[in-house]
């Protein structure tokens, strides 16, 4: 086995050991988080119970940005040091990120209807998150538009790096333009502007989602490695017959 390339066998063993440490805590945290979110936290004095959508909308939004950032970083690592595992982690993360972005957009609009009276408004934050969703779809579409998987992963990696410019735009869109969307109220210089009884379920859900992402990433990476292995083996057998 060629050592200096990716060492899939070592990663494989690592993934096996890490998997339970991600999967079970994720399940527990999400379940307890849901319990607190739905039963144990107070309704908002203005919004009433619709604020409970926050416990899904906000963690999904954080995850959408977190996953794209991890994709951009692993794509850069893959391109610079020609490390196949890095490309694989970007390819594995893309669908997960796309799902989180979709959840974020959907729950946002479900929260917007009762609060702002409309499903969608062309607001800086919402538009840039929609663009992020298209970037995820673009990454996945570009990835399997080529016959040679190695070619697809490298060109998708470049798109991931170019698209990264959108992440700061999303983060600061609420500050740059006067947006209907609420400015940052958790991660702030002056400390969170939310009461602790609402903050705990929020963090529980956020950490639960992150662990869910970690477990699913390892799982999808293993699948992708097996796909590549199958592709490599069939190519090798092809040349084996050709040589005979």
């Amino acid at each position, binding site marked *: 086995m060629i050592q200096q390339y990716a060492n899939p066998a070592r990663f494989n063993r690592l993934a096996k050991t890490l998997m339970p440490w991600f999967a079970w805590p994720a399940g527990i945290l999400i379940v307890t988080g849901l319990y607190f979110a739905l039963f144990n936290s107070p309704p908002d004095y203005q919004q009433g119970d619709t604020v409970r959508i926050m416990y899904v909308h906000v963690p*999904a939004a954080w995850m959408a940005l977190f996953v794209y950032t991890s994709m951009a970083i692993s794509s850069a690592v893959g391109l610079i040091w020609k490390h196949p595992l890095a490309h694989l982690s970007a390819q594995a993360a893309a669908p997960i990120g796309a*799902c989180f972005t979709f959840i974020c957009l959907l729950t946002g609009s479900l929260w917007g209807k009762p609060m702002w009276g409309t499903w969608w408004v062309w607001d800086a934050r919402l538009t840039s998150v929609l663009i992020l969703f298209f970037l995820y779809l673009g990454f996945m579409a570009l990835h399997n538009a080529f016959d040679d998987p190695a070619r697809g992963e490298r060109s998708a990696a470049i798109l991931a790096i170019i698209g990264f410019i959108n992440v700061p735009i999303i983060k600061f869109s609420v500050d740059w333009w006067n947006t209907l969307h609420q400015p940052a109220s958790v991660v702030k210089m002056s400390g969170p502007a939310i009461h602790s009884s609402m903050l705990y379920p929020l963090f529980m859900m956020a950490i639960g989602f992150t662990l869910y992402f970690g477990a699913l990433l390892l799982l999808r990476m293993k699948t992708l490695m*097996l796909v590549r292995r199958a592709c490599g083996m069939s190519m090798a057998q092809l040349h084996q017959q050709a040589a005979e």
Partner: protein
Amino acid sequence: MQMISDFIAMGGYGRFIWTAYGTAAIVLIGLLIISLRELRTTTAEVEALEANSPRRRRTHTGDEDAAT
């Protein structure tokens, strides 16, 4: 009984909240199931590939090839 229907109603916003949680659950659990199924089919495929060219036979043809 009354408490539960209050809970379902969620102060009149029930349909928004439950659709939000419902779709989020469907998407996340759906993704998990799809990923698990993909893993199963790919492992089966690799095992099939490995079966019809076991390591022993491959090195054998390898030697033959080097000899000619």
